[in-house]
Each structure stands twice: as C-alpha cells, then as structure tokens.
C-alpha cells in the first residue's frame, strides 16, 4: 500500500517535471510553428539565474520562481526582435537560427561561469508516505506544474489577450484585418514561451547540476512530448506528459533510469505511428 503511494507520487512528479520542461516549447511551437532548438538553453539560463541569485543572497523562492521567468522572458524578447522575427514561415531557417542561438548561449555562459557544474540548495526537506521517505521538493514541482498549466489555460480561455493569441494562431491574416498586429502577438508569445522555459530551468535547478550543457538533456524529451501532444497546447502537453511521465517513472522504478528513458522513447515512437498528429490531433481537437 505504501509502495503504491510512493509510486503514485513519483509518477505525479515525473509528469509534472515533463510538463514543465515542455510547456515553454509547446507555446512557441503550437502558436508559431517555430522549432526553437534553443529551448534547452533557455532552461539553462533560467537555472543559472536561480544559481546566481541564490548565491547573491536573494530569497531562494524568488530566485527560483520569479527571477528566471523575468530574465529569460526578456532574453527571449530581445532574441525575437533581433533574429527570429525575420524568419517567420521559414522552418529550416528558424531551426538553423535557433541552433546557432543555442550554441552561442552555451558559449556565452561557459565564458562567464566556466565549464563547471554548480548547484542550488534544496530549499525543503522530506516527508513520509507510510514507511517511505520522499523529498518534499517533488511537491513543489507538482504544485508549480499545476499552477503553470492552469494559469496558462485561464490566460488562453478567459482573457482578451488569450483570445487574441488564439485568433492569431488560427488565422493571422484575418486577425490582422480585425486590427490585431500579428508581429506584436508573436513577440509576446515568444517571450512567454521563453519565460516558461526559464521557470522550468529555475524550478529544476536544485535537482540537477547546473552546467552550460545541461539543456541538451531536456530538449529531446521536450520535443517528443510536444509532438506527441499535438496541436492543442495545454491539453496536448498535459496528456502527452501524463502518458510519457507515467511510463518513464514506472519503468525507471522497475529497472534503471536509463531503461526508463528507453521506454519513454519507445512509447513515443509507437504513439507517433498510431497517432501521427499527436494525441490532440485525434482527441479533444477543439481544446486549447
């Protein structure tokens, strides 16, 4: 019984982690069909913001939850204005540009901080599920994941800004003729996606080592989950993260984390074969 509780908790944590990693990429890809290969590096910047702020003495929660999205959102805004906005509609070119941005960011961070692995203090302790002990930080991750997904859903469904976002995504030309500036919408969307990636990096910083190359470990999983999720941003991310996170955690528990990753990849292959448009390509097609 305790074991089931432990496993369920681990699964929820895994799903939340995957959802947080993916949502930033999902917003950018879902809205603008831009393949942002610098997504992992946005997360890395968020993690470095958290490390720098917490070592400078800023409160740990502020430096993990508030500063990274602000900083990385700003970075995303600048990059969008200077590089990305000239490349809308050109998929290969945006891939190349964002790949170059990712290499540039890695090089920049390496020259500033060095090619060493830094760490952030774990801010909370542990609690017990029956006779098993788990880190309470997993609760933080689950909490942040739920808050992010639900507030994004509210943003898209209930606010005027969300309405404009969805309209521009569906039909940019018609929205333009109704008085919306697509360029401004794209700028806001890219900044939002970058901010979400920064938040994910900041939240995950205490778990993994923070190094210039850490983004590479996340980008593959983020892309797989986005493509597995399908066109609907939030429902797709949630469902795909749910499916893959579940499989990953269960298999990791039964064997090793490496086999767990293999299981995630294998299930992604099966999913794409069965549902080429992703989960929300077939089910829940009208959700956001």
């Amino acid at each position, binding site marked *: 019984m305790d074991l089931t509780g432990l496993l369920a908790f681990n699964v929820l944590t895994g799903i939340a982690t995957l959802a947080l990693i993916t949502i930033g990429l999902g917003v950018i890809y879902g809205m603008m069909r831009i393949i942002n290969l610098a997504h992992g590096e946005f997360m890395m910047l968020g993690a470095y913001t958290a490390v720098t702020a917490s070592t400078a003495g800023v409160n740990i929660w502020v430096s993990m939850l508030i500063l990274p999205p602000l900083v990385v959102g700003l970075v995303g805004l600048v990059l969008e204005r200077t590089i990305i906005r000239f490349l809308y509609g050109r998929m290969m070119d945006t891939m190349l540009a964002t790949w170059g941005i990712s290499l540039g960011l890695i090089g920049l961070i390496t020259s500033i901080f060095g090619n060493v692995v830094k*760490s952030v203090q*774990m801010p909370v302790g542990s609690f017990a599920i029956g006779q098993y*002990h*788990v880190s309470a930080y997993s609760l933080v991750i689950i909490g942040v994941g739920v808050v992010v997904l639900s507030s994004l859903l509210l943003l898209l469904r209930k606010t005027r800004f969300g309405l404009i976002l969805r309209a521009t995504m569906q039909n940019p030309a018609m929205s333009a003729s109704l008085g919306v500036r697509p360029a401004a919408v794209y700028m806001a969307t890219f900044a939002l996606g970058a901010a979400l990636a920064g938040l994910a990096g900041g939240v995950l910083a*205490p778990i993994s*080592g923070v190094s210039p190359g850490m983004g590479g470990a996340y980008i593959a999983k983020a892309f797989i989950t986005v493509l597995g999720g399908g066109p609907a941003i939030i429902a797709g991310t949630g469902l795909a993260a749910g499916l893959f996170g579940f499989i990953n955690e269960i298999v990791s*528990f039964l064997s090793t984390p490496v086999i767990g990753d293999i299981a995630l990849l294998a299930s992604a292959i099966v999913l794409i074969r069965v549902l080429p448009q992703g989960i929300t390509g077939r089910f829940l097609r009208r959700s956001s």
Partner: protein
Amino acid sequence: MTMESGSRRKALKFGAAAAVGALVGPYVTRSASAAEPIKLGSLLDGTGALGIEGRRMIQATEFAVGQINDHGGLLGRPVKLIAYDTQSSIQLYTQYAQQLVFQDKVDVIQGGITSASREAIRPIFDRSKTLFFYNTQYEGGVCDRNVFCTGTTPAQTVDHIVEYALKNWGKKVYIIAADYNYGHITASWMTKFVKDGGGSVVSTDFFPLDVTNFSSTISRIQEAKPDMVLSALVGANHVGFYRQWAAAGMKSKIPVGATVFGLGDELTTMDAATTDGIITCFGFYNNLGTPNANAFVKGMQAKYGPSLTDLGELDTATYEGIMLWAEAVKKAGSVEQAKVVTALETGISIEGPSGTVKMDPATHHTIRNAYLARPKNRVWEILQTFPNQFPSDTGGACDLIKSPRTNKQFMPQV
C-alpha cells in the same frame, strides 16, 4: 620551363640532401645541448564533469614541478611542464596524448583521471615507450611495465570501507555505481569483500555518467530495505544523488559509504546535512596533521590562495607521482624510459604529504598509508589509520619483475 637534364638532376640531389639534413639535423644538434629542459607532459581535466577534481590536480602538478625547479631541476636541467586540458573528453585525451608523444616529445606523462581515459591513452604510451604515471585512485589491476600507478586501489581502501560497514551497519548491502569500467570493477570488488565478510548484496545498479535524477533509484533502495548503501558514483552529475538522498530524508535512515566522495569540493559547496556521516577511505585527508601534510597544504595555499582547503588524495598522489619519478631519474642518472623503469623497480620510496610512499617493484603500484574518515560539519573526522597498505589487488598474479612482458588489467573473480 626547360632545364638541362644535367642541372635538374643536380637540383634533385641537392634537394634530397637538404631534406635528409633537415630531418637528421635536430637529432644531431640536440645531443650537443646539455641544459635543454626535461619535458613533463600532463593530461588532466581542468573543465567538464571531472573539472572540479582535475583543476586541483593541475595545480598540484604545477606545484611539484615548481618545487623541483626551485631545487635546481633534475640532473642539472630544468623541468618544463607541458600541460593540456582534456576537458573531460576522451577524444581530447587521445588527441593530446599523441601530441605530447610525437610533437612535444615529452620524457614522461603524468595524468589521466577516469579509468576510461587511462585505458584510452595507455596503448599510445606503450607503443611509443613513453613512461606513464597514473596518479588517480582507481579500481586496481593494471599490470603494464610502462605504467606506474600511485593512487590507492580497492585492496587498500574499499576493503576497509566494507569492513567498517559490515561491523557497524549490518549485512545487507545495496551497491550503486557509475556505468563504466571503474564503476563495474569497483562494484565487483565491493561484492567480493562483502561476501568474504559474511554479508550479502541485495542489488547492484549502474548509472551512466550523465544521469542526474535519482528519485526512482532512491525509491528502489527504500523498497529493498538494505542496511547500507555502498556508492561508486563518479562525477559532477552523480553528486546530485547525495543531495537528493539527503533531501528525501534518508540520511538518518540508511548509512552510506562511498569510494569517490569528497575528492572534489563537496565539503565546501554542499551543506553539512548532505555530507555528514558518509564513510570514505583515501590515502590523504587535508587535516591529517602530520608535518608533511601541513607543509603540502601550506605550500599549495601560498601559491594558489588560502581558500584552497579541499585538497585530497588525488592532489597528493599527483605530487607524489612526480616526486617518485624525480627520485628515479636522479637514481638512474637519465630520463631514458628503460633506465628510469629499472630505477623505479629497485623500490624507490619518498616521504610525501600522505606519509611514506614506496613503489612496489613487482606490481608498479605504491605501498602507502590509508585513512578511514567521514565528514563532520564540513571537516574530515579521521576514524582509523592503516599504515603501509600493500596493493594486493592482483593477489600476486602481477609480477613485472618475473614477467616483464605482462600487459593487461586483472579483474576480481567474483
């Protein structure tokens, strides 16, 4: 462009003679110069996953070479250090190894950190007969006439960790290790020592060097309910295990013994709640208190700053490896590989920061002291001292005096 065939032939002959002269020239002129420096090559990871450990070893190398030159060099010649940062990349190890041997033409190589890097470059040095000192503690068993290993081996350290664990913690052991040759062989040694001591191994899990998330592992360990965890995890990513272990509240529940913990800056960058109580066994700790140990720490701090408090066996073994080589060169009166090897095989001994370090002629490993310690409030608490530990990993199977052509790594029979 017509030339008389006669003058073309002359030009060809002259050109060939000039080319031969250019090739031979350096060899002729070199032997004429006596104050030419002795070249010491160094291959260590200053950056990357092993960078935390490697940068101190690089500093220890510079310190040792500086000391030798301050005392007038070797055989009246200065020692020139040619060091390359291999950035925790095996590809760079092999690339720079070739460069040191064929381009820089060094007289000795002191380097290698992970066992993977050692095995990648060892054949290069064997082929070119370049003397190679491997100064990192490792899984033991290398038996190669061209190689001298000064780091501690499982027979000198891991057996003491297992002995302490079985006596104080219980009999059920859970082993976690890095997924490469060091991790696998060390896990085999742990299994052997545990079984010899009457214990049992519940499970052995391996993790590639880039794994950072150990939450499912921690759950698995709790489910298996062992009396202790023995860890051979390596590198900056695996350090996350100890952080996550402490965060999950497991520190007070299941004790941990580790073979590669505290060799970097763990005690300074991690908080005491994470590091306290982890049992380790190495050839050196920075607070041994002996005159030699203090002199080494003070000397390094004088050169690199007072914040250098996290010196460990990796650094002292690097220093001792260079000093052993220097002693052998003085004894042999030459830097030629064959003569220095013969000198080393007479059983050279030095007084290093960790105590007396003697090169065992048959195994090409060192007989040295070992200490059992655990962190307590960011300071090492030395629990036991084991003087003059013999490198008995190969159990006598490695005898390079009797069989100098041996060239393999012996593994434990489990």
